């Protein structure tokens, strides 16, 4: 082992009490810290990407800025660093009160890690305040979002490159779990780097996760099938849906008709209940979380055994991200996608709703008074107008974007339709080499009955729930008396 390796392992032992790195971690850290290269790392979910920037930040000193897409996830990321003993950490985003934001900007020197939303990063006052700090590392988490969300949903993603230049080009680390060669090129283009980044690309394949799709005749049968699965699958699981309302209804139903303990998790859940759900899920006191896919979850639970998609994701990148929550302990896990033919109609509507149509664009450029613009769409249009694009160019851009999204949805639907070589289909989409033999297996469709026992999913040790104990005993337990 080189001196550098020794030092790296000493950090790992000291701060995380691990002896070995997970695949990809040491490779990225060596390129970033020893060879001082900028790195674009594609590492499958569950590889411990946050450990990479936590450790790199400790090693480099100064300020580490982490651009993170999910506002709801950001505070959880801060909590996770806190739990690793890193206290000088803060999140900066538009959900905060301006007073809090001001306070943070005034005290930036007191932090080692700043999580920031792209929309906040690109504000001039924020950029200026950050540029006065010694930023040694700029991380873009979920970097595929630059290509996936930037052009329509969140144009500020396209401005991260400007921030990078303004921060005097600190060490750059782009992290994602899924990015095709084309997406990787697109991401890098935003930074105008003198030389290409070092790419550390690991397969998106998660061999320990059994991939299963089930085409189901109608909604009623799908609902019945879900109940059946929730009753039978062992251990903790997550069900993804695209609607908060339906998530709430489903939770009630699952709670009544199965023996599992279920909670919903989405943007409308109060802070105190979110905390309860996260903590109980972590401590195996809660079996099932019904979540909306737009809503991330900051906790790192290694033994999620199964993920069920009740609604399909908008594209395969998102799908892989979401199923990647299963089996992080490298033990067998399963990802099941339940599908009826009306589902892609639902998802297609969601996709379209984010993109301004021709008429909206026309009224934007005509500056029609009192036109009922959607706020998100208006922001997008204002952004592109500020970039000097005229109506024709913007119309063309959004038509192209819609096409790309529809193609991505088709790929997703194709993943469900395909009845041969499903695992290799995923790898083909991401431009990866095909697997052969057993490695290409571990998938199934509705054509064969799901034999849960044969998957050898480990069972989880259920922690005793002290919820209903007498309040005196609860206080004693809380304070170790």
């Amino acid at each position, binding site marked *: 082992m080189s001196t550098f390796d020794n030092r790296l392992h000493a950090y790992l032992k000291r701060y995380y009490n691990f002896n070995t790195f997970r695949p990809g971690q040491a490779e990225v850290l060596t390129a970033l810290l020893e060879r001082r290269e900028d790195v674009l790392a594609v590492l499958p979910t569950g590889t411990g990407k946050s450990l990479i920037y936590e450790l790199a930040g400790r090693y480099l000193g100064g300020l580490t800025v982490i651009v993170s897409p999910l506002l709801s996830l950001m505070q959880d990321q801060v909590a996770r660093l806190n739990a690793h*003993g890193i206290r000088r950490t803060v999140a900066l985003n538009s959900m905060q009160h301006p007073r809090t934001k001001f306070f943070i900007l005034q005290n930036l020197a007191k932090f080692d890690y700043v999580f920031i939303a792209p929309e906040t990063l690109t504000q001039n006052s924020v950029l200026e305040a950050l540029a006065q700090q010694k930023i040694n590392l700029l991380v873009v988490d979920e970097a595929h979002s630059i290509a996936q969300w930037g052009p329509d949903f969140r144009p500020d993603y396209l401005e991260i490159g400007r921030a990078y230049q303004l921060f005097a080009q600190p060490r750059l680390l782009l992290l994602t779990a899924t990015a095709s060669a084309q997406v990787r090129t697109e991401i890098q283009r935003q930074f105008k780097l003198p030389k290409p980044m070092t790419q550390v690309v690991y397969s998106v394949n998660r061999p320990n996760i059994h991939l299963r799709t089930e085409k189901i005749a109608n909604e009623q049968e799908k609902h019945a099938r879900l109940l059946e699965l929730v009753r039978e699958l062992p251990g903790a699981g997550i069900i993804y849906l695209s609607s908060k309302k339906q998530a709430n209804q489903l939770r009630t139903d699952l709670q009544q008709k199965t023996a599992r303990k279920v909670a919903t998790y989405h943007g409308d859940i109060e802070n105190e209940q979110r*905390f309860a759900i*996260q903590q109980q899920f*972590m401590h195996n006191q809660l079996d099932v979380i019904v979540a909306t896919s737009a809503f991330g979850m900051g906790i790192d639970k290694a033994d999620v055994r199964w993920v069920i998609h009740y609604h399909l994701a908008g594209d395969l990148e998102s799908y892989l991200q979401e199923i990647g929550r299963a089996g992080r302990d490298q033990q067998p896990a399963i990802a099941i996608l339940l599908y009826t033919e009306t589902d892609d109609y639902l998802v297609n509507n969601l996709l379209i709703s984010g993109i301004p149509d021709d008429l909206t664009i026309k009224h934007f450029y005509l500056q029609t008074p009192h036109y009922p613009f959607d706020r998100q769409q208006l922001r997008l249009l204002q952004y592109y107008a500020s970039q000097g694009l005229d109506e024709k160019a913007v119309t063309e851009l959004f038509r192209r974007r819609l096409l790309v999204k529809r193609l991505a949805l088709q790929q997703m639907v194709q993943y469900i339709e395909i009845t041969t070589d499903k695992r290799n289909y995923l790898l083909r989409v991401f431009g990866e080499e095909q697997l052969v033999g057993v490695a290409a297996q571990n998938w199934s469709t509705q054509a064969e009955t799901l034999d849960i026992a044969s998957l050898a999913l480990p069972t989880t040790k259920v922690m005793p729930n002290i919820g209903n104990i007498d309040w*005196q005993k609860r206080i004693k337990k809380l304070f170790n008396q």
Partner: protein
Amino acid sequence: MITGYMLTKLNLTESRRAKVFGNIWQGGAQTVSTSFWGLVYDVLPETGLFENTNIEKVLKELQRHGLIKHDAHGLIQLTSKGATTQAQYQETHYIPKHLAINQNFDLKLFRDLFLLANQTISELAYHNARFYPYQIDLQAQWQLKHWLKMHPREVLITQWSQELQTWLATLSNEDAQLFAQMLFGHDVSNALFSELPIPDTWTEFDWQLWQLDQIAALMTVSLTTDTLIKSLILLTRRSLLSNSANISVAMWQENHSLKQIAQQRQIKPNTVREHILQAAILQRWSVAAIEELIPDNEQSVLADIYRDADLINWDFKIYAAGKDPRYFTYFRLYQLLQLAKKREDMDVNV
């Protein structure tokens, strides 16, 4: 949900300004008018408690079900169907009783500090520094950190748990049980809504409201004691008045005239009047203090014009139309005076 709760703020006989509820629930700076009507409707103690309220949506929902009448001026009133639903709501949902403290101490901020303090002290009791902390506002976190450092570890653990036990013992067993379920710490999670022993009719909104109300009760009681909890509450002291208004009021209380304050502070006399008016509303000034603000002759004129006991129906134009802004202030102060008299009468009766 807050839609049902909104019904409890309305009645059959009187129209109320819908926006007042939205503005007060969302928190933030209040106009004198909002504060005044907030006082009349007794909703000021709920300042900032439901900041995500979309009042337009709430009103639409109530209107859609035929529970309120909503006119073009934003005035709302219960329909008879609304009154029936209101009565049902009051029977089946939680109605808070202790929120008054929120006018002088930030209740939601205290709730966050209290829960994180409890978690941290619990982890301290197990010598564990590596845990997922409950996420609260950063400034509050720093305040708490400072507060924790002021007390020795053993004192924190022993005294905090003792104070909690003392408090819980004053509650009914059901309430104590529920209160304890919202506490979390080392290897102890707080309860999910679905596992709480609460009435079937309660929604998550009721649970949130119950928690806030119980914490408000804890604050109210603790302020009369010499406890760790009291020292934590003191961190959340607040004034609903703006800094500028506070300066004007301080000068007024040092016997400067309105004119002198305006000149010295280089602000308009009307702004100073608004500051004083805002203070009289938010700090619930006494009858004597308000009377001092209205010249005697104006009090007589006002008394002649407004004989109707129900000040909600008073039309300021009869007295103040066409006059300079000071007369509107006198009008408002006179309304306040009547409210203060009612309050003082009630206090005497109690």
